[in-house]
């Protein structure tokens, strides 16, 4: 387990691009047909950087850090780990420096469909820096296990003129290992060790040929990530097909589309990277000619140029943004959404539901004019309010008379919706909603107003501003709305899809958490006010660790990366 801990730790350290040789040596003897290959590389330097980082010095003093460090479980963890290191006559630094600090891999394949669990394949590969260190460690482990009766015998074996060893722990339980060059291989299945010997004999030297798994990592853009989980789609084809065949009627459509996209998937990886913050993502690479036509734009299309995230103010608490026209979004959802064949599809039901608001004959033009830039976000409450202000901004595209007509139909439709809301509410409440209109520098803002019935500061409003339709729970963000900047969200082509501010969210919850909990109880949305308050407080405490979280999309050649970037409150690098 403690190897697992180390692997987990190491997965969060950055890597020097130049130091790839140990990884290559390791992956040269790894099975290329495994379903999953976990690779952890260059941990030594990463560990050093993290240990010396401002975050490492600061984290123990935070509320979350204190809670972990003061827990009895952590004490047990510390005691057990200390005992293990003491027994092994080593320490975490020595272990990282000399044993697992260069490269580690674990390859796994599940049993074939219908196969037995014992048919699964797994192998652990380590490329230590110091053979003496790993030998000493192994000797010590062996000695301890011999003394405790865990190890019964050690048997020398041969396969294709290569030597490997069986560790017999009982009549029915054995483990196997070998050294091939600078790589140590271990498995509880004998055939996996024999396969390592065979691959070592057959594979060309690293200097002559880049190992296939390294090539895949490079194609996926994760070759230098300290922690990578490579996924081989072909091994899972049969299982995906089985899912489609066994799908319920309402899942069939989606799973069939999923299987089509899966068949076009060439390679995939989940990766973790670290610089001053943490990046965790998924990288997908497709075979373009196999990608379904309607999905090509999204999976292998040209690099997107959206700047919609800059619609959100820098101090927004949380928000999502996109660069897609409403009509494209509806088409995309229609093409993949689950649904039963004899029922109306997404597109038809949207037409039925909102067509009457805008006029069915005008709906297509309106949907076509909505976008591509849009964003929805929450920002700090306006004065005297305790609910965050929610804002949606949608670009209205098109030119000339078409655009004017679309804008007019849109505003009429939304106003009609506001009126319906007002009538529905007023018919059931003694307090009444009014639809008010105010102008500000040529901007016409229409709002639902009810000082008695609405929470303080809550005033649902909409307006057309600078080519954008704005809908918000207050007029203030509409008045100060600014067009997105022309520059890209990030220089490297990242498109921000979502963003969360740690300090903003924490500050809001600390100031208004109690009232928010009370409000949710009053609205009948939750029953337990104290439990809700505790939950909000706990979440606020977590935000102490985080400066920002972003979800970004990045186009790659024949593929796409989706990445969560976590910026901690203190840098993870000195």
């Amino acid at each position: 387990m403690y190897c697992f801990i180390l692997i987990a730790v190491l997965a969060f350290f950055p890597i020097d691009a130049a130091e790839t040789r140990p990884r290559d040596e390791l992956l040269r003897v790894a099975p290329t047909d495994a379903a999953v290959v976990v690779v952890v590389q260059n941990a030594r330097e990463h560990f050093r950087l993290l240990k010396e980082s401002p975050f490492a010095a600061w984290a123990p003093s935070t509320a979350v850090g204190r809670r972990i460090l003061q827990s009895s479980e952590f004490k047990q963890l510390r005691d057990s780990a200390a005992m293990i290191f003491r027994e092994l006559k080593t320490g975490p630094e020595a272990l990282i420096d000399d044993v697992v600090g260069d490269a580690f891999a674990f390859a796994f394949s599940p049993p074939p469909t219908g196969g037995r669990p014992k048919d699964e394949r797994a192998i652990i590969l380590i490329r230590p820096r110091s053979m003496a260190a790993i030998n000493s460690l192994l000797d010590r482990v062996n000695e301890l296990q011999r003394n405790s009766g865990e190890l019964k015998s050690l048997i020398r074996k041969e396969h294709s003129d290569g030597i490997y060893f069986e560790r017999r722990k009982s009549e029915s339980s054995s483990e196997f290992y070998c050294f091939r060059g600078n790589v140590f291989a271990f498995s509880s299945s004998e055939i996996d060790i024999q396969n390592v010997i065979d691959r070592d004999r057959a594979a060309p030297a690293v200097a002559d040929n880049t190992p296939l798994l390294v090539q895949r990592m490079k194609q996926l853009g994760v070759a230098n990530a300290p922690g990578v989980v490579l996924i081989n789609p072909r091994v899972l084809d049969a299982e995906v097909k089985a899912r489609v065949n066994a799908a319920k009627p309402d899942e069939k459509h989606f799973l069939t589309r999923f299987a089509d996209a899966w068949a076009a998937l060439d390679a995939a990886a989940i990766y973790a990277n670290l610089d001053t913050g943490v990046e965790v993502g998924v990288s997908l690479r497709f075979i373009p000619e196999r990608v379904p036509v309607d999905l090509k734009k999204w999976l292998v299309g040209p690099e997107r140029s959206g700047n919609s995230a800059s619609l959100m103010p820098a101090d927004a608490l949380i928000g999502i943004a996109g660069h897609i026209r409403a009509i494209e979004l509806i088409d995309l959802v229609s093409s993949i959404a689950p649904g039963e064949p004899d029922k109306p599809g997404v597109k038809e039901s949207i037409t039925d539901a909102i067509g009457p608001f805008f006029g069915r004959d005008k709906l297509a033009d309106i949907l076509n004019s909505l976008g591509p830039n849009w964003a929805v976000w929450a920002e700090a409450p306006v004065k005297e309010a305790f609910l965050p202000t929610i804002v949606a901004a949608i670009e209205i595209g098109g030119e000339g008379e078409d655009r004017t007509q679309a804008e007019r139909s849109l505003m009429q439709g939304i106003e009609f919706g506001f009126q319906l809301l007002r009538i529905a509410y007023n018919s059931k409440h003694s307090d009444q909603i009014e639809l008010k209109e105010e102008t500000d520098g040529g901007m016409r803002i229409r709002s639902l107003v009810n000082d008695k019935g609405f929470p303080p500061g809550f005033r649902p409003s909409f307006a057309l501003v600078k080519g954008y339709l704005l809908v918000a729970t207050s007029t203030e963000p509409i008045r100060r709305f600014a067009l997105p900047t022309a520059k890209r969200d990030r220089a490297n082509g990242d498109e921000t899809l979502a963003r969360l501010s740690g300090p903003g969210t924490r500050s809001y919850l600390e100031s208004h958490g109690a009232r928010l909990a009370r409000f949710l109880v009053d609205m009948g949305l939750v029953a337990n006010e104290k439990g809700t308050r505790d939950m909000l407080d706990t979440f606020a405490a977590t935000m102490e660790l985080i400066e920002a979280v972003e979800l970004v999309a990045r186009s790659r050649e024949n593929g796409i990366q989706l990445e969560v970037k976590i910026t901690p409150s203190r840098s993870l690098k000195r």
Partner: protein
Amino acid sequence: MNVSSDNSIPLLQEDCARSMDRLQRMLDGELPVSASDVDPHAASCRECRERIAAARVLLGELASRVYLILPAQLTESIVATVWEDRSSRIRRRTLTVVGASIIAVAASILFVIWLDRPGVPLGNAMAVGNGEEVASALPLAPEPRPARLSEELARVEQAVVESSRPIAEHVANASGILELFKGPLTLPVGPSPGFAPTRDALAELPNAARTGFEPVTSTTQKAVARLIREVGSVHMSTNPRQ
């Protein structure tokens, strides 16, 4: 066929069932008490470890008393407990597997930093024979037994998961908070009846996506479980080199 979560069940069943079978045979006197020492599953399964520990206490009691009448249906009772507990264990384990990497990383960073002390020099390599069987008939553990690495590692595993609970709870809270705000966002007006198919389709989308990705998630889950099994019982040995 819904295989994802189901796929993991036979694995757990088989491991736990094998452990239970071994335990039962030990209780029946068919196997020596030391048989539980070499149960690899116990190193990675707290419940089975605890059952083995309880059985050892029971056998200790048996050895110290003249008569001890075992309760009727003891086996059935133990097995029933195993199965009753299985679902919740699978859920816990699924959560552990899915979240373990992220959670363990956070906890482990603190853990390693906290533990970081100058390392003790490594011991000398042991001499190993060249024969066919380089070490055999190794003695069983004397009493009192020395610390067992696999048990200590299993404790570490458990402690990592438990001590990272504060972070796990916070992560779970985030989704809970999102749930809180789903209500207000849909409150002002009920959706038009015509919108129902779209609403249903969108609501079903995450489930369908989950089903689609099950081959990946279940395989990753199995891989993590296997990795834990492989390293969790310290499967490393002496160093005869080629």
